Each structure stands twice: as C-alpha cells, then as structure tokens.
C-alpha cells in the first residue's frame, strides 16, 4: 500500500508546480447576490443550490498543473441528505426530550451531559460532510474518496475535546494534528493514499503566544480580529503544508499577515451595514411619527412600521450574507490557493480510479445540527 516507495523510481525531481485560482470576482459576486435573493424568496431552501454553485465555481477555477478541478456534487443530493438527516434526527430529538425529563427529576439541569451526545453527532457530521465533498472532487478524470468511520472519528474528537477542555485549549494543536491525521489517512486520490505530516508541536510553536494573549483580546476586543486572522493564516499554512497524497506533497507559503485585510474588510462592511440599517430604522420611525402623529412610545405597536423594520433587517442579513461569502469564502480561497505549490506532481501522472461515492447524509446532519467544519 505504501505508494511513497514509488517516488525513488522517478530520479529527476521536477520543480514544484504552482496552484492558480482563475475565478473572476465579479462572477462570484453575482452568484452570491443572486443566491442570497433566491434564498429569501424560497425561505432558505435555495441554500442547497447556492452552496453547490459556489463550490462548482471555486473548484472549477482552481488550476493545478494546468488542469482545473471539478466539483461533481449536485444540489438535489444535498436536499435528499438533509431530508434523510431529518428523518434520523427527529426520533433522536424526541428521545433526548424524554431522557432529559427523567434526568431533570433528580437534579436541575442534570440533562446537560446530553448536550455532549449532540457534540459527538456534530463531529460525526463533520467527518461525513468532508467525505461527501471529497468524493465529489475530481481532477484529471479521477475522483478523491474517503473510507474510515465517522463514529471512530467522533470518538477520537470527543476524547481530544475532553483533553482540550482540561488543559484550557493548550492541547488544541495536537488535537488538530491527530484528527487531521485520521482524516487524511482515510483519504485517497484514486489509488494514492493520503497522509498528514503536520505535527502538533509545529502548530504549537507557531501559535502558543496567541493562546497566551487571548485573554488580552477579550479585554482589548479591537485586537481580536488581528489575533484571529494571524491564527487562521498560521493554521492554514500548517494544515496545507502537511497534506500528502502518495509522493505528492503540498506546500503553502501563506504569509502570517495574509488574512488581516479580509477580516477587517468584513468588519468594516458589518459596521457600515449596521449604520445604514440603524439610519433606516430611525428614518422610518421618524417619518411614521410625523405622518401618523402618534406618540413615540406607541410606535412599537404599529404593524406597518414593524413590517418596514422587518424588511430592513432582512436586507441587512442578506447583504451581510453576500459580504461573508465574498470575503470569507471566495477571497480566502483565492488567497490561500494562490500561494500553494505542489511538489512531486509526477507521482499523480497516472493514477487509476478507485473508491465509491459517499452520500450527502453527513452534509444533511451538519445542516440540521448547524455545525461547520472542514
């Protein structure tokens, strides 16, 4: 199984090939804006199609060694996965309710440990969602795929989570490394098995001072975005540089300050949108009081005004949605993938297809439980 043993048979080490992102920002903006509007009209059901469109855009504009990747997942799969997840989650919620009634009889809030069960479910969902995404990723006519068990992963994530809790998060880098190792060891590109070479100690060395300074960020909260951006950039670089598929090695040169601008732009937009929405609320209230001549404290009773407020609120949420997708998904993707290099790509020149498609059940759970993970 050890594919790495083939590498010595290719003596001339070719120079690394860069990864390029060729997506047009305007195209993505139109995609996200139209998607947000349709999400509003369909009270959220369009999210399956929007997520699929976004992934298709990002994947198909990411070019590795001259060939763009392809996302073959479809929105209907996500919808079906969501419905399946619901069918499983409903009885679980019911059981959760009955058990918590029993537990609360003995001690108030004794049912809290049940929340831990949902955490495990969330970890399972994260693993299975990644598996779905990976099996829908195709490059040069060969798909990635994944085996391993979602529950085995959830179990590991729980144990590491407990350790992280006991050490106040100090052990977080080792948790990340161990969990990623599990995920990558069960990931394949065709017949090339993946592995993860990032070490917890490496991430710890790069981030320990951020961990120490995190209480400062709580007091001086304007510093928090800097800390977060710094941490994210370091984490991305560490994670990507650890990825292996057989003899193929990925290397990221993402500078530690690379994401500062993006996070601040999101915060700037958030402030701007809040001010605009606030002004709109004020103006509505003022004009309404002028026209109807009502007293200020009766305003909260008027239905037309509440509808106007509702429209303003929705407009703000939708614009924020577009801003987040544009900066935090598209721009982060473009920046991170643009600073990637792939070494030993010749090991992937002739890889046979293997592996099956996974169902979108995990994505459905992740949607139903509101967990996010990569």
């Amino acid at each position, binding site marked *: 199984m050890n*594919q790495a043993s*083939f590498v010595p*048979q290719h003596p001339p080490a070719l120079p690394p090939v860069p990864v390029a992102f*060729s997506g*047009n920002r305007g195209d993505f903006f139109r995609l996200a804006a139209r998607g947000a509007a*349709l999400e509003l*009209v*369909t*009270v*959220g*059901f*369009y*999210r399956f*199609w929007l997520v699929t*469109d976004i992934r298709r855009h990002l*994947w*198909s*504009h990411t*070019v590795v060694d001259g*060939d*763009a990747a*392809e*996302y*073959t997942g479809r*929105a209907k799969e996500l919808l079906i996965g969501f419905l399946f997840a*619901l069918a499983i*989650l*409903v009885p679980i*919620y019911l059981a959760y*309710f009955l058990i*918590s*009634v*029993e*537990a*609360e*009889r*003995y*001690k*108030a809030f004794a049912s809290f440990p049940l929340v831990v069960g949902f955490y495990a479910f969330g970890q399972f969902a994260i693993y299975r969602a990644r598996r779905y995404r990976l099996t829908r990723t195709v490059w*040069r*006519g*060969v*798909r990635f795929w994944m085996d391993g068990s979602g529950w085995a992963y959830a179990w590991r994530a729980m144990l590491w989570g407990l350790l992280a809790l006991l050490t106040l998060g100090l052990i977080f880098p080792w948790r990340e490394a161990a969990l990623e190792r599990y995920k990558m060891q069960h990931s394949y*590109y*065709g*017949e090339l098995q993946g592995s993860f070479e990032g070490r917890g100690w490496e991430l710890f060395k790069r981030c320990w001072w951020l961990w120490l300074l995190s209480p400062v960020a709580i007091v001086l909260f304007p510093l928090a975005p800097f800390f977060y951006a710094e941490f994210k950039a370091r984490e991305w670089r560490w994670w990507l540089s650890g990825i292996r598929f057989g003899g193929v090695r990925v290397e990221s040169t993402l500078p530690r300050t690379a994401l500062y601008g993006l996070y601040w732009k999101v915060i700037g937009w958030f402030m701007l949108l809040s001010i605009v929405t606030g002004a709109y609320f004020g103006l509505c209230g003022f004009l309404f009081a002028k026209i109807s001549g009502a007293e200020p*404290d*009766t305003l*909260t*009773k008027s239905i037309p005004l*509440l509808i106007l407020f509702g429209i303003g609120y929705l407009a703000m949420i939708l614009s924020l949605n577009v801003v987040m997708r544009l900066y935090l998904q598209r721009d982060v993707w473009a920046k991170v993938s643009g600073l990637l290099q792939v070494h030993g790509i010749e090991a*992937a*020149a*002739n*890889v*046979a*297809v293997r592996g099956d498609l996974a169902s979108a059940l995990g994505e459905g759970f992740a949607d*139903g*439980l*509101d967990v996010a993970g990569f």
Partner: protein
Amino acid sequence: MDSTAADAAVAGPGGGPAIYFDGLSSRRQEVVVAFKEALEITADGLSPVSSQVSSQVSSSVSSQVSSSVSWAYSDIRRADSGPGTLRVACLSAPSLARLEIRDAAVAAELMSRCALLGDNRLGGRGIAKIVGWSLAATISIVVVVLFAIPLAADRLTPLVPEAFEQRLGDAAAVQLKTLFGGRVCDTAAGQAAFSKLIDTLRKSADLDLLVQPTVLATPIPNALALPGGRIYLLNGLLAKAETPDEIAGVLAHELGHLKHRDSMRELIYNGGTSFLIGLLFGDVTGSSAVIFASRSLVTSSYSRDAEQNADTFSIDVMQRLGRSPKAMGELLFRVTGKEGNRSLSILAGHPLTEDRLKRMSEADRPASGSPLLTDTEWSALKSICGPGKS
C-alpha cells in the same frame, strides 16, 4: 446528428487538438478530435501514449488505452471548467471521462453540434421550480402550524399518561426551585389557610385531581401551574394582594390551566411549531432571530387562547362561590398597570390586563357567598413567608 462529415468540413474545422482523460486513470492524453457522425477521439498518432504507462498503473488500466473513442453528439454534456476551456463528458462513457478543448474554433464547432450540451445546468425553469416548491412547502408548513398542530395537541394531550405528566411536573419543579432560590414558605397557620382556600376552590370546581400548592419566597409577582397538579404562588403576588378574593381568583385561574392540561398541550404545540419552523429555515434546533420572531408570533396566539379559557374557568368558579371575579382583574391591574401602550398585543402571551379586567368586571355580581377566608386566616396567609417579609 443529421449533419454529415462533408457538411462539417464546410461549416467549420473538421477537428483539432484536445486533451482527453479516459475516466479510468489520471493520465493526460493529447488527442485529436474529428467531427464525423459522432465525435471521434483519436490518440495523437505521433505521441507515444502507451509508452508513458509506468509501473504505477495496473494492467487493467493500460489495457484500456484505445487508439480511438467515439462519442455520440447527443450524449455529450458540458462539465465545469475554468475560463478558456470547454470541458465535456459523455453519458455513454465512464462517468469521469473528460475531453478538454482549448481551441476556440473547435470548441465553437462542438457546441454547435451538441444540442443537449447544457442539459445539466440549472436554467430559469429549474429556478422557478425550486421557488414554486419552496412556496408550496412554506404554505403547507404554515397550514400545519396554524391548524394541524393545535388539533394534534388537543387530541394528543388526553392520551398522555398522568404518570408521565407527573414526571414532567417533577422535572420542571426542580428547575423552578433552582431558578427562584428554592425557599418554600410553610408557616403552619399560613399553610392551613392556603390549603383551605385551594380546597374550597377545588370542590366548587369539581376537580378531583391531586393538587400540590406551594408558596415560594420570591419578590416576583406571579403564579403558575405545572403539569401534574403543582400550583406555585410567588410571594410577590401575595404581598400585592389586598383581599382573599384576589388570590382566590388567581388560584382558580391556575386550577383552570390544570383542568385543561394546558402545560401539556402547550408543550406539544410549542415543540411541534418550533420544530417545523426550524425545518423551514434550515436549523432544527431553532435558534436564529427569524425563527424566534415567527415562533413567538404563532405560539403566543395559542397561549392567549389558553389564558382566555383559564380566565373563563376562574370567573365560573368565583361566581359559583358567590364571590367577585373582578378581584383577580384588579390584582393583575395593580401588578402590570395599563399594558396597551407598551406591548404589542399580538406578541403577548396573555390577553392585555385591561381587557381581562373589563371582562371580569362585566361578570361581576354583588357578593352572595360567605368570605373564603376569615380575617385571621387571611393575615396568616399574607405572612406565610415570615412576618414583615415580602
């Protein structure tokens, strides 16, 4: 399909270079495509395709290397690709086989020959379909929330075993005591007066269920009934009361909730609606602002109905005892003041206090029955949490 090779030669290029992935391995093959009856894909004769096969490739793959493949135009579909490349797949080929054409003229020629090229794209009709189905789903969920769940709650409540309701009440009682500090007032004389009051009301209402009344030492002016026959009177309300009739009215109201099993019904109703509305907005646990807003709108109208019924029950009981139903309204008014200006009536879980007072005043008649408590019993009840403490 009906265009011949000869037509093609006139209309555009007869073929050109392309890159082919056979869908069985990641080998990148430089090929030549030719527009014949079907799309002919031929390995570039000069490039030694087969010699690239390295030790990594299993024999099954290398045997698949064919010199020529043909794809029917009607089977060709577009696949996602970056700018400047036309990438196509074929329904009758391995699902991941791809042909990439970078020459604009060749790409244009292929597009003109494949009528069903863009079939897997979501067009305007597809979007209209999604919108239509979402609206249908929304309407059906709204109908279910407004009509089916109240009906289900009414029908299901009598089916819930008393024992389960008792357990539910036990669980809620433990939480309640934790929230309110948990000090139970049980001065002997006060407790005796309290029990007498409850028993009088219970007999008059013809309720045979076991009632466990408790006074909790907290300044919050409120009273509540939990499933399984527990009634909690918070001392704050007792401190604000001026006559036994006021407290009797409130207790009769809570007995009404117990009789109608409102907590159980509300539990089923709230659980059902939050689940369905959560489903609508894609979050089963139901936490976001939209969910909160629409949920409170729907469930408060339901609980307003329940409150109205409990008020009716209280008025009935007080009239049967020959005491004033209006007293409870006056106590409520003293606690809340006029509510009309402050809160939005459709969001409130109770009817507005002034409306309740009005309704109770209309039902008021001169007292004909004997007082429910003697003066000594009343003052014992007032000081059930210890003398001079509210």
